[in-house]
């Protein structure tokens, strides 16, 4: 009899613990802070969001630290940038996570790139003679607010599927985010309109979507080829090219060394800007809106300055 009571108590406790677990917040892990920022916009305080990479580190080269395995172990949903951006570090983390929910192809595995507008998808046979090229297209697609909206909708679909009771909450947050982003995008595009077609050089190919949306013309790269550090000959060629085309802006991601860009700046009179491609890249870019605010203000100030000279 005592045993039966004990068993009943145990089952009751187990059921309670399960139901408590079921009502707990949805645990979302993202690979980058940009995806985390958008997930926060949609999920609000009904989800917890944690990013693996910091905004100020190179997302191609993140170390697969065991502490990230612990994050993934508890995740209900993993959101990744995709397009092979995380190919060097995410697969072993997923494999060691012991979490069936976030394995490739599972419901909790969301590749945010599948509906987004992706640029630079190779149309011909590619080889590594072209450097560390991304065969599935440029993975820096979040730097177009239109893609931000697409990512937000995808995240909404997924979190609403996991938490159907919270669907209307997520939906109202999604609509609010989309409205605010629409307004902001109009404002940003208007801000940039006078500078349409401004030529610039970037360190890595991180800004094609950004340039396309805001009408900038990227004419060269500090890297001779993706993932290949600057060489003296390429730097000289770039300086000549910039002088000929009167390029006055060099954009550098926060995780690259400034030595070569600065010498290019000195030789051409161009402004060298450390421009974060990600939320968290600098302290001021603390969410998705502030990232664009920061980057666009930085650019506009520099363009004003260089056009005044």
């Amino acid at each position: 009899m005592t045993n039966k009571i004990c068993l009943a108590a145990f089952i009751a406790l187990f059921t309670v613990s399960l139901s408590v677990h079921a009502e707990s917040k949805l645990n979302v892990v993202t690979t980058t802070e940009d995806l985390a920022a958008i997930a926060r916009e949609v999920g609000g305080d009904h989800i917890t969001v944690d990013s693996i990479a910091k905004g100020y580190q190179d997302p191609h080269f993140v170390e697969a630290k065991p502490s990230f395995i612990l994050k993934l172990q508890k995740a209900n949903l993993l959101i990744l940038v995709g397009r092979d951006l995380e190919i060097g570090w995410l697969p072993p983390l997923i494999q060691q996570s012991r979490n069936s929910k976030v394995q490739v192809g599972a419901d909790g595995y969301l590749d945010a790139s599948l509906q987004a507008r992706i640029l630079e998808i190779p149309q011909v046979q590619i080889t590594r003679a072209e450097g560390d090229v991304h065969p599935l297209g440029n993975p820096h697609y979040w730097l177009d607010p239109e893609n931000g909206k697409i990512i937000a909708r995808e995240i909404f679909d997924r979190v609403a599927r996991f938490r159907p009771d919270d669907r209307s909450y997520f939906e109202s947050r999604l609509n609010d985010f989309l409205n605010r982003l629409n307004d902001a995008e109009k404002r940003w595009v208007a801000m940039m309109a006078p500078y349409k077609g401004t030529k610039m050089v970037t360190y890595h190919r991180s800004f094609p979507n950004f340039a396309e949306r805001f009408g900038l013309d990227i004419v060269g790269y500090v890297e001779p080829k993706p993932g290949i550090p600057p060489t003296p000959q390429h730097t000289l060629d770039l300086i000549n090219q910039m002088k000929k085309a009167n390029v006055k802006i060099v954009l550098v991601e926060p995780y690259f060394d400034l030595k070569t860009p600065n010498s290019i700046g000195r030789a051409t009179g161009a402004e060298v800007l450390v421009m974060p491609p990600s939320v968290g890249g600098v302290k001021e870019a603390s969410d998705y809106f502030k990232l664009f605010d920061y980057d666009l203000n930085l650019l506009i100030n520099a363009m004003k300055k260089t056009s005044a000279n």
Partner: protein
Amino acid sequence: MKPHTLPLLLLFVITLVSDGSAQTSTVAEIDALRAEIVALKADYDQRLQALERQFAALQNQAQPAPPTQTPATTAAPPQTAEVPAGAQGAGGPGGQLPVYGGAAAGSKIFNPDIAVIGDFLGAAGSNKVPNPEPALTMHESEAAFQAIVDPYARADFFFSFGEQGVNLEEGYLTFPAVPGGLLVRAGKMRAAFGKINTLHNHVLPWTDRPLVTRSLMGGEDGINDAGFSVARLIPNPWIFLEATGQVFRGDSSDLFTSSKRGDLSYVGHLRGYQDITESTNIDIGISYSRGHNGSGIVDNLDLGRFRTTVYGTDATVRWRPLRRSIYHSFVGRSEFMWSRRGQPNGVQSALGYYFSGDYQFARRWFAGIRYDRSKRADNALLTDKGQSAVLTYWPSEFSQLRGQYRRTQYANGPTADEFLMQFQFSIGAHGAHPF
């Protein structure tokens, strides 16, 4: 695609479009579209016939004297498979994929990720021990095949092609999400003993392996055997803690020898990891391994039934500042191993260890040092010592050039001063960077 698929597809799309805007479409517009489709179809048929003629002409060239000319219409077209839906949009190949050997449609898409890593080694200087590294050798060509098997498992194969033959370095199935939080692996694998025993040659920061691997772990391959592995994370509020248990057949280099089915060998490993700051972390482990050795085998009979037990500890400190992670890093590592080997002349108790430090001082440059010291497993009275200095240059992420100066003081021979040179290069799929 069949010859008429494109016009039909166009017709279908246009029908859909015209359905949606039926009220606004005029009869004239529909007629114009119809005429366009007819023109397209005629053009398409014409092109197809031209292609068929070309194909027949090429076939005739390839077979100069056929007994009877094969009519072009009956020539078997090359086998092709449709690209799976979604692949094209996701940046995959478009159109048709060739299928060789008549395999099932789409088979190429599901081929495993393939990579080949070459390890070319050169050696100069004096070394009087038997069989030192030759002057030049294609030390190893490792072919890796990796893919997800099904929703429950993935498979990894690593074939090591030496100049003498082929060896299955590793080939195992991993079940990444078994209930109970277990990571289960079955197949031939490098045992989870310490740090470098788990690492393939091409990810080591040196051209060689430390003396302790050769002296106490049975040679370059270390503990590498067929068996099962089960690893579990131990939940606790403080650190990452992982326990691994492995059972092997009991045949591993010169370390373990199994003379009957029951002579299994066992490996246990406990790993603790903690981030100190976002740039610095510490990784420590303890290991245990036990199995039968070959010292008591006479005429293929294990008369002695001697066993070897190896204990190990390892510690790694890593530093990599996140804001400059591609330019600077440091890895300091040490492993101690203690072997107790039962032999006819009594138990040999041998200790060996190494210390190493590798500093990345520029995006493509690494410098490192290593100190080695190890007694020999079968004769603990003999102690070998070694010192190395290493310089590595990475032209890109996929190739590296390394030079190593190595001085080895052998217990029973003259000191060897050598310069080792290594080219490593990788082609194929982009593998994950080991941690």
